[in-house]
């Protein structure tokens, strides 16, 4: 009796906790509200399944608890019931997977007009690179990294000369324009993680990875590292400032290009 009651409290209490909990995701600042929608669908389906299963468990424990004279029913199989349950489960799974894959196909399809920018991770700080007037990022190689060339840009690549290198500052982005974030690491794995953007991806030394998003509101958002990268991992903080086009251009004018840095 008490056991059944406790199980019921767990089932219903979990739902109540879900609705009353003050801990929920931060307001979104990117185009990935579809991700939030898929998450909500998943909450509904799994929530119903959880309450149904634990509720039924509680009922069984109450109804079929041992009492004098209680005898179990002997029934090794019930093919129809098993088939029915399997089909219902498959349906629920499909209802989560279909929207999930649909949104994933958007996630991996970068729009043609996305601006390529670069985030570089190292123990334990972030650097950024924005394309110059030509709209393209130049090539780079970890082996070219030196004091005067912290990101290892290729000095022989003319496309890189006008690239804007940002160190010890926030990443600035204009609002409403899709960006493809190219990710590089120079030492170990890192992960550029801004909770408000929902998207994230590891950066791997030796490879260039990416994700894309469109910032939809202005403001400053904190960036954290989401892949364990050594003892300084929690201290690896940065910021992203999403600005109006005019503000962004004004900021951009004050930045130094790779050519200017190299000339010093």
């Amino acid at each position, binding site marked *: 009796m008490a056991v059944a009651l406790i199980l019921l409290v*767990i089932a219903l209490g979990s739902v109540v906790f879900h609705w009353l909990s003050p801990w929920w995701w931060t307001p979104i600042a990117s185009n990935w509200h579809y991700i939030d929608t898929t998450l909500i669908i998943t909450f509904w389906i799994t929530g119903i399944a959880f309450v149904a299963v634990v509720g039924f468990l509680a009922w069984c*424990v109450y109804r079929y608890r*041992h009492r004098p004279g209680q005898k179990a029913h002997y029934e*090794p199989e019930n093919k129809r019931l*098993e088939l029915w349950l399997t089909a219902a489960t498959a349906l629920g799974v499909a209802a*989560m997977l279909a929207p999930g894959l649909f949104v994933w196909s958007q996630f991996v399809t970068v729009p043609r007009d996305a601006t390529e920018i670069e985030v570089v991770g190292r123990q334990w700080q972030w650097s950024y690179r924005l394309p110059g007037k030509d709209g393209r990022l130049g090539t780079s190689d970890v082996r070219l990294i030196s*004091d005067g060339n912290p990101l290892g840009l290729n000095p022989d690549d003319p496309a890189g000369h006008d690239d804007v290198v940002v160190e010890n500052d926030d990443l600035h982005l204009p609002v409403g324009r899709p960006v493809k974030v190219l990710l590089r690491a120079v*030492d170990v794995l890192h992960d550029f993680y801004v909770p408000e953007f929902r998207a994230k991806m590891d950066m791997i030394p030796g490879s260039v990875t990416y994700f894309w998003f469109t910032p939809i509101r202005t403001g400053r958002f904190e960036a954290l590292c989401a892949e364990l990268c050594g003892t300084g991992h929690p201290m690896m903080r940065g910021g992203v400032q999403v600005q109006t086009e005019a503000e962004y251009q004004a900021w951009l004018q004050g930045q130094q290009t790779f050519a200017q840095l190299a000339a010093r």
Partner: protein
Amino acid sequence: MGEAVHPANTAIPHDHAEEVELYHPHSWWTRYVFSQDAKVIGVQYSLTAIGIGLVALVLSWLMRLQLGFPGTFDFIDPPAYYQFITMHGMIMVVYLLTALFLGGFGNYLIPLMLGARDMVFPYVNMLSYWVYVLAVLVLVASFFAPGGPTGAGWTLYPPQAILSGTPGGQDWGIILMLLSLALFIIGFTMGGLNYVVTVLQARTRGMTLMRMPLTIWGIFTATVMALLAFPALFVGAVMMLLDRLLGTSFFMPSLVEMGQQLKYGGGSPILFQHLFWFFGHPEVYIVALPAFGIVSDLIATHARRNIFGYRMMVWAIVAIGALSFVVWAHHMYVSGMNPYFGFFFATTTLIIAIPTAIKVYNWLLTLWRGDIHLNVPMLFALGFIVTFVNGGLTGLFLGNVVVDVPLSDTMFVVAHFHMVMGVAPIMVIYGGIYHWYPKITGRMLDETMGKIHFWVTFLGAYLIFFPMHYLGLLGVPRRYHDIGQAAFVPDSAHTLNAFISVVALVVGAAQMLFLFNLAWSLRRGRQAGPNPWGATTLEWQTPETPPGHGNFGPELPVVHRWAYDYSVPGAARDFIPQNEPDPAGRAA
């Protein structure tokens, strides 16, 4: 009836395999220390695993102290914290759960439940245990080595695992960790081959595969999986050792560490992740499948009801085992691998939910219309169902690739995997110990202590891990020594962290009551008799309790029925042991 389920398998072969002389112990040393008796080896494995598990428990206390009360404990600095979480994770997954389920329960139960005298290779079986002990000793040694144990996270991702920014990366820590893993795998392979051959070759007459208890199906399938999965970790560990010691570049690209160009070049960090998770995902089921099997038997026995849908349960175990080899990259959705892999791995991952759900339904339908005795093993089985369903459902978030993107590397993941492969299997381990302790020692564990232990552990663990999901939803990343100030983390999240830590201390303390019960009941427990639960399987039908070397008397038992003849209509008792012939004289 049993026969109706397996019409083709009713005949008992008449040929009698010749008995092999066992190596009987000659002294205290060969009886209790260098024993070749699978039952003794099983107990040795279990006690060693519980011993090293206590280290992991203390480490979890220390990390929770830091997370709940950051800045209070000076000795838990970032390197120490990362060492604690790494060793906690590695010990729990490999040295405790794997060793306890396969080495502990596997050794004790496989020969007994199948009606065998012992494992088929008893000497190799003994070696398996001692190599495991060696692996544990090497692991423990890393705590005392210069620089301490590795702090690379239990996933040991290179390049950081072998670089100086990580504790133990340029010291002894990572070397000892990799050596210990290699030893563990060598030891496990000796035991694992033994379990597989024993299941396939040493079953007594009449014990067809489709009459085996689900415990054996779970352990058998998990062992086959482990034999296929552990080699991936083994080669990964050897390659990383070569990278670290000889300067090869399997996993190391050109890189610049703290402004210094290193001599590595051309390797692939992500290759290690594939090797690791090709082991790591099956590993989840290597732990889960024995738990599935054992909990099925606990539920059937203590609900006095046949397991519902036995054949479906067997096929679900086999299907989960097979599918679990094609889902590994769902741990790597945001690793930077080709994003198109996401479509494939999300689909396979969600498909695996179907056989898993079937198992849950069949446990519920076994309880349904049962005669549920709410004793301690049954309570733990109920606790398993709740925590496993909870953890399994949150797996549907993380398996569905696009939902994983915001949640991965957050506390949501920590909460999920602790619920599903920490709390749930440990519930089954406890249930199993309360269930089989009477056979192992001849005495019952104290029921009152058992119930207190259950409620504190079950409710406490739920209070720890259920709210933790919401920290992850909030965006709190995992593996943070201190979240510090972040605009999206409200003060209430710190309060929640403190609450979780306090509950964790209490739950940890409750485990001491369990250990006390183990020791106390050894002498003072109620005499159990041969079959205190009225169970059908062969280990309860031994002539002696605890069973002697060779398990059964002069004649091995002959099996006439499946393992789940509980509450058969018309039978005199509410259970019919597997070795009881059919009274009607039908060809059993």
